[in-house]
């Protein structure tokens, strides 16, 4: 019984992707017909720096099992340095998540450039696999 339930369960991933790199990279993965994780639900932001930590917490609260933030590689940010700010915020957010009892591994920060369709594909698949191992996120009120 439990095995069928496990099979039918698939993690829900909310991905905040920056418009210039990772979102385009995801587009490339699609155009190139690469297999990426179907669990990912993408939200486009202009820059990964736009991702307010509130969004991440809100996503977990509303039932996301994992959150991914995708930005340009360090030094390649379309807005010069937006991704540096993301880097700082994500590190602090992980400490906060731990305090809330959420495994920090459920939050991923990935640098994926517009040309790295294959990296987008295998990163999302890898994240999905990791979340399957972690199981569904169970929050107590």
């Amino acid at each position, binding site marked *: 019984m439990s095995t069928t339930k496990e099979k039918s369960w698939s993690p829900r991933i909310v991905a905040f992707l920056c418009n210039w790199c990772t979102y385009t990279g995801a587009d490339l993965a699609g155009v190139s017909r690469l297999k990426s994780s179907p669990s990912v639900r993408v*939200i486009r932001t202009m820059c990964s720096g*736009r991702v*307010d930590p509130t969004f991440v917490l809100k996503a977990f609260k*509303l039932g996301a099992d994992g959150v991914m933030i995708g930005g340009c590689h360090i030094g390649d940010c379309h807005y*010069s340095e937006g991704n540096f700010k993301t880097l700082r915020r994500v590190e602090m957010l992980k400490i906060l998540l731990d305090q809330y009892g959420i495994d920090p591994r459920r939050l991923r920060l990935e640098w994926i450039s517009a*040309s790295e369709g*294959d990296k987008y594909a295998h990163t999302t698949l890898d994240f999905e696999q990791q979340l399957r191992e972690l199981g569904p996120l169970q929050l107590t009120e």
Partner: protein
Amino acid sequence: MITVNIDGKDIQVAEETTIVKAAESAGIWIPTMCYSELFEPYGICRLCSVEIIRGKRTRIVTACNYPLRENGLKIRTNSPVIQEIRKVLIELMLSRWPNVPVVKNMAASLGVIEPKFVSLERDEAEDACILCGMCVNICRDVVKANILGFANRGIKREVVLPYEKMNSECIVCGACAYVCPTGHIKIKSLDYERGAVADWYLGPKTAINIPTLQAVPRVPKIDEESCIKTQTGGCGICSTYCEPEAINYEDKDEEVEIEVGQILLATGFQLIDLKQMPQYGYGRLDNVYSSLEFEHMLNSTGPTGGLVKCKDGSEPRAVGIIHCIGSRDENYHKYCSRVCCMYALKFAHLVKDRTKAEVYQFYIDMRAFGKGYEEFYKRLLDEGVNMIRGKVAEIAEVHSGSDGKPYLLVKCEDTLIGKFREIALDMVILCPAIEPQFDAADVKKIFSISQSPDKFFLERHPKLDPISTMTDGVFIAGCAQGPKDIPDSVAQASAAAARMLSLISLGEVALDPVKAEVVDEYCSGCRICNNLCPYGAISFVDDKKISNINEMLCKGCGTCVAACPASAITGKGFTDMQILSEIEGLLSI
């Protein structure tokens, strides 16, 4: 001006003119062996000896270094005494160097067939050094490297390098070999990096050159690395010949700032360095050419006048053209360079047309993809070109030919007959892969665009927008975007130009509406956002004690929106409300 009399002719010349030059202007020939206009007269061969008659006194002087200073001097260049002197001189030379063409010809023109002397230092070589000193003089006076010199005296005299060794002071300009009348000094090695090049080198041979007759603009350029002037400060001969005085050695590259609204990047490609694939022998084996070198050879204004020739000047008996050198190769570039198949077929056609050689094509797959291309391929098959489907493993030089002439042995796999083959060829043409310019990553950074995995510039969309980039106003065309042939490059460049013109004719640019905005009522004036903005668009309004965003400077990244603790900044198009609703919507299923 002064007037002198040479062989009965009155001639007006400027003061200080040498007798040789004065005679030349009068059309009188004086034999010389060590004289050149390029450097100070040396007067070592003495063949230019002439008689000068001042009143009743007669003197014998060398014409090359005797300056005319007085009126009424009489000069006899061909009197019996002078003839006798010259004969003895040339007989002495002929006895020592009997087979050197310049000596033999000079002797013949002076009426000497056999010398009456016997030399102790007789040298039978045709390219023997005749100690004229031209090389020493040009190196000292023109090149100013001053590296060649004479050693020893009398019959032991010879031209030597310091300590008889090649040293770093020699700039390998080749001036000594150029001026050597016997060919005793030779340029042996083909040194791509610097200096003089051997006769069979297919590129430009001089430091000042027009690269090809088709060059645009068609003006000569100075190659700074091999120009003598930039290396030693000597030479400068080109400027003395340029009447409009157009040569400026001081001219340097300069940076000019121009304000523009749109930029088209058409920075092109480079060819893969063939020397990293030693199995093909490029740069090591004779008669292995890159396609561009062969194209230069085929050019009717090129070094061979358009004839297909091996380095020894003979016509090749068999020519091989090898496709996909570095393209479609896991070790180098995975992509197809697209243009090689068709130019390789063109080469085969032209080789067939201009020689009787057998032509072999070594290909992986024939990709005759364009309009009329397949038809051309069919035509080539009918012309009797040998098509071998398979990769070449190695090219080796073999010396065991029946006529003693070395040939190139190409070892390859013929997948159509399923056998390994070894084919003897006289010439091999390699088709190198097209690759992005070496500095493409720097250009990418400057224009904040992206590179695809193969390092060509990334277009906005591979199918729907192959001419613009993620940066507004920056367009790409040609091989900077990916390997393509001329029709495709023209089409892409025309499209990019049209796109740019359409924006110009509009007269205004539609800006992205995504901007951040401060809601004054909520702003607490904490100034957290002030230092976050990479564009300095956020300023603090002192009298209101709140922050303000300059809409013109804001690029809409939203970093400040995410950071604002009071949620006083909203990002149009990406407000907190919008994104939170998106999250809700996405997770409701």
